[in-house]
Each structure stands twice: as C-alpha cells, then as structure tokens.
C-alpha cells in the first residue's frame, strides 16, 4: 500500500494523506467533463422541466403568469403534436424491428464466415464512419425523380417512374429505408459482440443433439443472444423516438407534405420560428423524456430477465 501511495503521490512524502491528493486529481481530470455535463445537460434539463410548468412564459423578459399544467394541456390536445407523436411511433415500430431482424441475420452470417472477414468488416463499418449527411445525398440521388438510379431502372423496365421524394406515401417509405440503413452498422456491431460471447460449445452440443442450422439458430443462437437483442432494441427505440435529422437531411423539411413531422420537429419548431412557444416546447420535451424513460426502465427489466 505504501509503495502504491508513493507512486501515486509522485514521489512526495508517502505519509501525506492519500485521499486529499487523489481528490484533487480526480477533480482535475473529471472537472472539465463534469462542467460540460452540468452546463449542457443537467442545467438545461432542470430548466426545461421548470419551464414546462411556467404558464405564458417569455424567455426574453423572463416572465410568466404562474405555475401550472397549461402547457401540458395545450400540447397533449394539440392535433399537430398528436400527429407528430403518431408519426414518431410509426417510425419506431417500423424501423426498429425491421432493422433488428436484418441485423441479426447479417450478424449471424458474418459470425459464421471466416473468409472475406476483412472486406465485410469494412463494408458494414462504412455507414458508421460516413456522415449521414453524405449518405442522405446518395439516397437523394438514388431515389431522385429525374435521373435517379431506381427510376432509371424502373423506366428501362418500361414502367412509369415513381416520385419517391415528392409524395407523402413514398417519402415515408424512403425515410424508413434511410433510417434502417443508418441504424444497421451500430446494431450489427453490437450483435456481433454478443454473438462472440456465445460459447461455440453450445453449437457443437446442439449439433450432436441432432440440430440442423435453422434449429440451432432458433433454439440456441437467438435465445442466447437475447440480452444483446433486448439492449439493442431499446437503445435503437430510444434513438428512433428522437428522429429528426434523417427527415431534415432527406427533405430539408418535415417531408414533402409535412407528413413526416416528428416530435422533435414539433419541439424544434416551437422553439424557433416567428412566434416561439417555449413552454409548449418544454412540455413536449418532458413528454418525450417520459416515453424514453419508460423504455429505459423496460430495458433494465428485460436485461435482468435474460441474464443467464
């Protein structure tokens, strides 16, 4: 112990109080980070929380008429917010499961391939390191109306071209594909890590027990991977609830016909624009916060349940 103390004290008197010098160092290293968190996360959160209860709040004059639930009443009765909530939930419900299923299949295949591992690793890592803004440009090119890749193929096949980016129905479809595509690498990497944690002996045992590839996948791989699957599903759901940037990058607005208006879009618009309503924005943020909090709790429960 005394040896250790000496080393940590940088050669000073070993009898000097260990803790005081350590606390100083901890503060020194952790300080800037903590300061950032306090300024940019904790303070705004508390502020938003309080703001959501301030009625008729004006940020410029810092005045409000009183405390109450008026903002929540307004937001929860606002058809625009409710339709935003609906759009967001639909996005989560479609993108998260589909991307998860695709990722599981890809991860299992990758885990079983020894050949091309290096190439494949780069391939599935690419979207992660490429900025989504760049990917959105590619998507816009692929789905563009005039000269877009898919429309070229469609017209060559003698079909009439589809206005992917300009119609409500198809723009939604493109957004889902974009969302799934962007979420895949992260999901696959986590699942691969989970797969690597499965003792290959279980596969061998199952083979000796007579199991074929598909039996092994459904009876061994998926159940043993379920802690990771649960984790990824929840993390992806949380981030999908906050979807905004994908919409913005693809369309520069909430979809061609305001059809992809998500909760974050609502919050964003309430904060900005010509007639900002900070109280409403704050209340909407807190509602979203609670939705996400529920999912986080759900993750904890699931994780405990699937802990072998």
């Amino acid at each position: 112990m005394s040896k250790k103390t000496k080393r940590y004290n940088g050669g000073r008197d070993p009898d000097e109080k260990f803790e005081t010098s350590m606390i100083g160092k901890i503060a020194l290293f952790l300080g800037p980070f903590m300061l950032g968190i306090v300024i940019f996360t904790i303070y705004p959160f508390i502020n938003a929380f309080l703001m959501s209860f301030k009625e008729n709040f004006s940020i410029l004059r810092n005045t409000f008429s009183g405390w109450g639930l008026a903002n929540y009443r307004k937001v929860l009765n606002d058809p625009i917010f409710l339709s935003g909530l609906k759009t967001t939930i639909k996005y989560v419900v479609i993108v998260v499961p589909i991307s998860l299923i695709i990722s599981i299949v890809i991860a299992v295949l990758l885990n079983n391939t020894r050949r091309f591992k290096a190439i494949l690793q780069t391939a599935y890592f690419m979207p992660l390191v490429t900025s989504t803004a760049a990917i959105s440009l590619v998507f816009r090119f692929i789905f563009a109306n005039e000269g877009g890749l898919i429309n070229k193929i469609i017209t060559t096949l003698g079909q009439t071209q589809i206005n992917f980016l300009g119609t409500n129905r198809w723009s939604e479809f493109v957004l889902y594909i974009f969302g799934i595509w962007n979420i895949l690498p992260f999901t696959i990497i986590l699942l691969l890590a989970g797969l690597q944690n499965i003792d290959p002996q279980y596969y061998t045992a199952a083979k000796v027990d007579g199991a074929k590839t598909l039996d092994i996948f459904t009876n061994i791989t998926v159940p043993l991977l379920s802690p990771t699957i649960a984790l990824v599903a929840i993390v992806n759901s949380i981030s999908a609830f906050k979807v905004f940037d994908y919409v913005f990058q693809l369309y520069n607005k909430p979809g061609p016909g305001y059809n992809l208006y998500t909760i974050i879009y609502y919050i964003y618009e309430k904060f900005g624009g010509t007639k900002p309503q900070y109280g409403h924005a704050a209340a909407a943020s807190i509602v979203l916060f609670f939705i996400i909090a529920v999912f986080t709790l759900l993750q904890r429960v699931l994780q405990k349940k699937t802990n072998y």
Partner: protein
Amino acid sequence: MEVRIEDLVKRFDDVVAVNKVNATFESGKLIALLGPSGCGKSTMLNMLSGIMPVTEGKIYFDDRDVTMLSPDKREVGLVFQNYALYPHMSVLENICFPLKIKRVPKAERIEKAKEYARMVHIDDYLDRLPKELSGGQQQRVAIARALVKRPKLLLLDEPLSNLDAKLRVEMREEIRRIQRESGVTTVFVTHDQEEATSISDYIMLMKLGVKQQFAKTRNLYNDPANLFVADFIGNPTINQLHGIYEKGNFRPDAYENAIPIGRYQIEDGSRVVFASRPESVIVEKKNGKTVMEVEETYVSGKDTLCVLKAGDGRLRAYVDNDSAPQEKDLVSVSFRDRGVFVFNEESGERYYE
C-alpha cells in the same frame, strides 16, 4: 452397437493428434480412453461423435461406415467436459432438447425426459436453470440429455474432472450404474488411471496419438504391453530398475547382487528395465539374499508400503502390517513371478519368457 475404427488418423497441420489407431469396441461395454494430457483422447472422441472430420481411416458403427456422417445422423450422445448445458433452458428443457429437434410430440418428450431425469436422480430439479445446479447435478443432466435420444453410443469427455474427490467417486459409480442399466456402448475419456480402472470393462491407453494397449482392464495391470503401460497403470507406480540381462539374471546398475529372472528371449548383455509391482516384491528378515535398507514406511489399510534403498534407486514394496519392518532395518529382497516384467530399455518393448 459395436464400434470399429480402422487406421484412424487426425492431423492438425504438423501435429499428429491421433496416429493410425485400430480398435473394436464391443457392444454394450464401457471403454475407458486413457492417456496423459494431449495424447489425442478428445480428438478421438470428437471424431467418433462426428464433430471433427477424420484425416484418414474409417469409423464403423456395426457394419455401417459412418466416417463421413455428420453428428446429427450418428445417433451418439456426448457429455462434454464442462457439460455444455444450454444456459437458457431449464433442466427439463435441456433433457427434452434432442427430442424436440426430432419433433417428438411435447407430451411424449416431457414424459421421456422425466423418465431419464429419474434415472440419473435429478428429477427434483426439473425447473432449475443450469447455473442453479452443482457440478455433479449438472453432469447428471448432461448424461440424461445424452441418453434421452437413446444413442447407440455414449461418449463422455473427462466428465468428472470438475468435481471434488468425493463426488468424483460417487459419480463414477453412478455412471457405471447408468451404463449398465441402459446397456449403451460407452467411451469414457479420462487421464486418471485409477478412474479408468475402477469404471471400465476395457481400457485403451494412448500416448502421443498412438495406441499403446487396448485390453481388458485387469489385463492392462497384469499384462502390460510395454513400459509406458506398466508405468502408467498402478498406484504406487511400478518399480523400475535399469541394468543388464545376462543368462537368466538381471544385473542392476544400482547395486551388486544379480536377480534371477528366468529365461527371456534376450541377447546376453542387453540393457533392460526390470519392473516389479510393489506387491510382487518380497521383503524378508535379513538372510542370504539381496540386502537393502528400509528408508520409509507408510501404513495404508492392512498393508504397509516400504520404501527400500536399492543402491541409488528406490524400490517400493507392500508388506503385511504384522510382518512389516521398521525404518532403518536391513531386509532381504526377492521377487515373485507374478507382476514382474522385463522391458527393452530403449524402446520400452516388453520381453516375454
């Protein structure tokens, strides 16, 4: 089911893990695959189960050539060294799994699984997860899982090595009982010669991938094929004196007196190893014959193990407690005919009379 292996070879790059092994495992018998670590026991077992392809040679189950057959078609049960129970399944589900794969109806497979759970005395724990079981209980689940599909061949890879000494002896007997009850041909891997001798009908002893001897268990002790076998089997290990064979006598390097050992097919002057089981060494009050000093004595049960100073070497002898000498006593030593073997010093090959 009878198992026959012909010129079985397994190579990993430059390592020959199993080298040209031939053997026939009689139906319904318990065969111990014995040998020091790294001698190819697991490799052999894995080839029998089909999870590892063979490099050369053939494996026959009865008259069927199964060499190229995948594990799911071989009808073997395998108990892994660390059991490999499926951690997300309860005991019952684990035992049911092979039947589930065979699409046996649910009610039927549960009934079957319970039957085998009873057989291995694990039926009180059906709803537990593997992590909630002790090592011995896990092992029994693994055996039940291996047996429930009524395999033609049961393979066990050092199943007892994770258990404490007492449980090991208990489970050893348990495996013996289960094997008898089910009558399945069983191959049991171990590196513990005592475990092998206490459990098996036959032992195949291996060294560096080469079969040393495959024989009835007691023959391995009484009639070893070479020095390695003689040395490996038996506790305490067999006494070994190095020396020269000359006209029916053995002249040890370690001390003066020659030992009359009878006529062997050995050229006079050849270097040999004279090996004797401790119970084949006769210790008497000092008389005309070879005299040695008693260095240490250990009482074990009704016998006393005496360690005798044989020149530079040591000789162990079992003596009846009543006639046991004291430490530092001088005693005369001679040898019985039984349990005494002569081997070529270089090759370890056995010489016969």
